[in-house]
């Protein structure tokens, strides 16, 4: 399985904090996103937001980054700490 988590405004907009996909359903971060939207059409506009960031196993990555079983994939808005 691939564990997927959402943070901050994104989590509130989706009304959902985490999700799971089978590793056969997506091989890149972009495909994870596409799959999430395919399974939850109401999320489409939220995921179309170009500024969303993604991380795999705690490292910031781009959409082409590969994912595999056991990975933790996170999506979140631009960070605003400090």
């Amino acid at each position, binding site marked *: 399985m691939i564990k997927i988590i959402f943070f901050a405004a994104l989590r509130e907009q989706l009304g959902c904090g985490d999700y799971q996909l089978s590793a056969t359903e997506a091989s890149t971060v972009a495909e994870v996103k596409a799959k999430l939207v395919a399974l939850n059409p109401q999320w489409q506009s939220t995921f179309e937001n170009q500024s969303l960031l993604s991380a795999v196993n705690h490292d910031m990555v781009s959409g082409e980054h590969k994912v595999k079983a056991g990975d933790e994939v996170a999506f979140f*808005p631009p960070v*605003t*700490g*400090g």
Partner: protein
Amino acid sequence: MAKVISIQEQDYNLADEVALLEQDNDCDGAVVTFTGRVRNKNEGLKVSGLYLEHYPGMTEKSLEKIIAIANQRWSLGRVRVIHRIGQLAIGEQIVFVGVTSMHRKDAFAAAEFIMDYLKVQAPFWKKELTEQGEKWLDAKTSDNNKAKQWQSSE
């Protein structure tokens, strides 16, 4: 370089942190600290407090990386980063960066660098409580530009 990173709900004591940076450390003549606090206003709106969310695990990893880059660029003694999470009231401390070095230039540069990168890379999110209700803050272009400047300078 010795570094300590803490992500915590509870407050911290500035004097204690600086004492730890200086203790048994008679070779570093320069100590620079940055404190970020909850302001009472933002973009013209009165603010009554902040809520800080983070991504446990990634936050620490991200700060480790930022400090490692700073340590490659400058000659540093000790580095301390504390970032608070959860509910914070006006005037409370949000973030502390403390850096010691033999040279003030290195201590100043590294402290500012760590803050600039923390702002755009460490997974924290602020929700502001204003007179018009709750609102997640938007990231600032100016913060992105400021972080990028380190790539060209020096």
